[in-house]
């Protein structure tokens, strides 16, 4: 059970309240869904409940967070007995070197008998779909696999309240769907109260009991999901069903519908990237991450790399960017002075920041790239990504979603010929994704940029890309035009969601309710 009463919080470094008068209540076994745009205070709220805020952050905090009769703000050291928290970045939530050790770590801190620890670990791995990772080391795991293990390691603690901050940001859709179904079972059977922070409504709308919408640190809307209406969704800052966007995106001024700019595969197309017989194995790993990959990327094409976790999407992007070198195979990048015209947006956006504020970051990049009017270009880029308001804010104070936007803004400012994006939608809110779709389409059209996007978000890829390649277990299984890929009957067997047929349609859910 969670009961939050009049919770206010302001970071030591912040002027505005990050949380304002939060009041919410969830019974045992209930699932509460927390939605809201980037920077609305969702993660701060989660950290308050987990007892992390009073213990790790300075700032002004008042109100009550009662978890199982204990006010965790008064006794944060009690929180871990009742609250399990899985944060946004899975990499930092793994504190040992093997999956087995990781899942057993929490229960071992409780001093439980070894037999019980092993049972809990096996159960948690099974529930989070990470059973096949049991004998792996942490270094071998992809982002999504890490997320599953991070989740399993918290589930093994058998908490009374479980807070999940975008638990499926890196997990492929078919698995996310199964995972949420399991979560509903766990909540019911174990009487665990679950608070779920999500940017996507499909998959979670049918398992949640209550929905809370946060904006600027305030709960601006809350309702039982059973009573939720279509107009509630459309009139509040919450993720919109993708079905409602077809008209919206296509009718935007200056945005041309995708088919007009379509690149098709043909023998005569001139290529910007050619990959032949590429093999890559991570150090100390038993398996190849990429196996005999052959791919030709036509100039000015928008290419999506689709595939489940660990399929090799990010590895391939990093090889094209020159960050890692393949053990075997050839990669050719064509074009005059092309090296100066490659933009790369890493999975961890913070790794690309060299300046204290977003404006300085983009402005300095524009200056380094010797653009004619760096100040103008910097503002243009920031505006495109909706960052003007945050232009002078310290970059490390930005939420993960805004950091992602900034990383893209600084990669775009140089009008790159080839832009590589590694999971660009992770932690982006729904509006952020829609904006990014528009930005990338505009950039590709205006600057004739070739885009290569690794993502498991099929909807995002389908709204931008002309072509796509399906990667599965390190091999390319299919290359073709995006429409033909979406029509593949076996698409879901590759761990890829068909955005228009998979998951739960929010509209259908409302109709059938």
């Amino acid at each position, binding site marked *: 059970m969670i009961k939050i009463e009049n919770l206010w919080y302001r970071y030591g470094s912040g002027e505005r309240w990050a949380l304002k008068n939060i009041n919410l209540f969830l019974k045992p076994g209930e699932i509460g869904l927390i939605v809201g745009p980037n920077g609305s205070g969702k993660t701060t709220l989660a950290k308050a409940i987990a007892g992390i805020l009073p213990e790790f952050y300075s700032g002004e905090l008042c109100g009550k967070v009662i978890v199982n009769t204990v006010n965790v703000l008064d006794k944060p050291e009690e929180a871990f007995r009742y609250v399990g928290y899985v944060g946004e970045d899975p990499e930092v939530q793994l504190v040992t070197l093997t999956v087995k050790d990781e899942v057993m770590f929490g229960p*071992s801190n*409780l*001093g439980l008998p*070894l037999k019980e620890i092993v049972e809990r670990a096996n159960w948690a791995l099974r529930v989070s779909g990470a059973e096949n990772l049991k*004998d792996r080391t942490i270094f071998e795991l992809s982002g999504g696999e890490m997320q599953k293990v991070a989740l399993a390691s918290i589930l093994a603690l058998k908490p009374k309240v479980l807070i999940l901050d975008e638990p499926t940001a890196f997990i492929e859709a078919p698995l996310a769907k199964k995972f949420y179904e399991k979560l509903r079972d766990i909540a019911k059977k174990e009487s665990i109260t679950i608070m779920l922070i999500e940017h996507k409504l499909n998959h979670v709308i049918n398992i949640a009991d209550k929905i809370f919408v946060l904006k600027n640190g305030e709960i601006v809307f809350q309702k039982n999901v059973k009573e939720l209406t279509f107009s509630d969704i459309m009139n509040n800052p919450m993720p919109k069903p993708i079905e409602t966007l077809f008209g919206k995106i296509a009718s935007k001024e200056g945005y041309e519908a995708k088919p007009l700019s379509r690149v098709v595969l043909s023998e005569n197309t001139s290529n910007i990237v050619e990959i032949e017989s590429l093999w890559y194995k991570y150090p100390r790993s038993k398996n190849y991450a990429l196996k005999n990959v052959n791919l030709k990327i036509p100039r000015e094409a928008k290419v999506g790399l689709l595939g489940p976790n660990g399929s090799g999407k990010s590895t391939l992007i990093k090889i094209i960017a020159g960050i890692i070198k393949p053990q075997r195979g050839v990669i050719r990048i064509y074009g005059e002075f092309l090296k100066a015209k490659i933009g790369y947006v*890493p999975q961890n956006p*913070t790794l690309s920041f060299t300046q204290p504020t977003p404006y300085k970051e983009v402005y300095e990049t524009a200056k380094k790239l010797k653009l004619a009017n760096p100040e103008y270009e910097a503002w243009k880029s920031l505006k495109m990504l909706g960052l003007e308001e945050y232009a002078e804010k310290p970059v490390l104070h930005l939420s993960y979603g805004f950091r992602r936007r900034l990383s893209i803004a600084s990669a775009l400012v*140089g009008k790159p010929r080839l832009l590589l994006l590694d999971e660009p939608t992770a932690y982006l809110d729904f509006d952020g994704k829609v904006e990014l779709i528009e930005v990338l389409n505009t950039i590709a059209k205006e600057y004739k940029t070739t885009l290569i996007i690794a993502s498991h978000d099929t909807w995002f890829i389908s709204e931008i890309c002309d072509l796509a390649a399906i990667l599965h277990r390190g091999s390319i299984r299919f290359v073709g035009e995006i429409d033909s890929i979406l029509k593949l009957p076996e698409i879901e067997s590759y761990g890829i969601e068909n955005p228009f047929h998979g998951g739960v349609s929010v509209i259908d859910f409302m109709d059938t309710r």
Partner: protein
Amino acid sequence: MILWILDKIRVALTFSQENTPLSKAHVGFKFLSLILFFISITLVDNVYGIALISTYLVLVTLMSKNLRILYESSLAVVVPIALLGFFAWIFSPTGIFSYETLVYVLSLVARIYLLAVSFLIMFSTTNPSQLACFLEKHGLPLVFSQSLILTWRLIPLVLKDVIESVMSIKLRKFPSTRALIPVTAVAIERANMVSETLYVKGLGFKERRTIISSPGILSYGLILTIYSLILLVLVLIL
């Protein structure tokens, strides 16, 4: 070049979970043998002695059943050791082209190489949780044993970040040294988040934790210890 060295060090420090006699050896005896080997190396002062103690590396490699680990560990240390050898040679007090200098430089390089590579192979084939549990059982405070695991976990991660950051900012024409800023920022952020994770997972709230790893197979550990002890005795006699 620096990126190349960093990448090789990252690879060499990456934990290798193989089912080999070296990975399975008793962790306490494994590191005891390494200490004995270290003493032998500091004591050895002639070519025969060096030839003798190099057999320890042969034994370690054989027990790891993986020549690639030897190769990767050698790559990680080859440049720094070569530089050290070069400076030791040109600044030798006995002259650049004398026999004494040659022997001195070769023995210095060989000793450091043997020590560094043996350490790397031992570390990369040991599960730090196993070592931490062993040390905790023998009275080392929890905070030290957990720090050990985290260091192991985070060093390759930081090195990976350095490489990714350098490549990412180089594409935007920033000098590589600028990567220090994001890497430091990410490392500090990670450290904060890792401490949050340890807190959420309940580290330190109970005085007694359950020991989840066994220290390993005694016989393999004893082979290593006895062999390094024999080497030490032979070095002392020679």
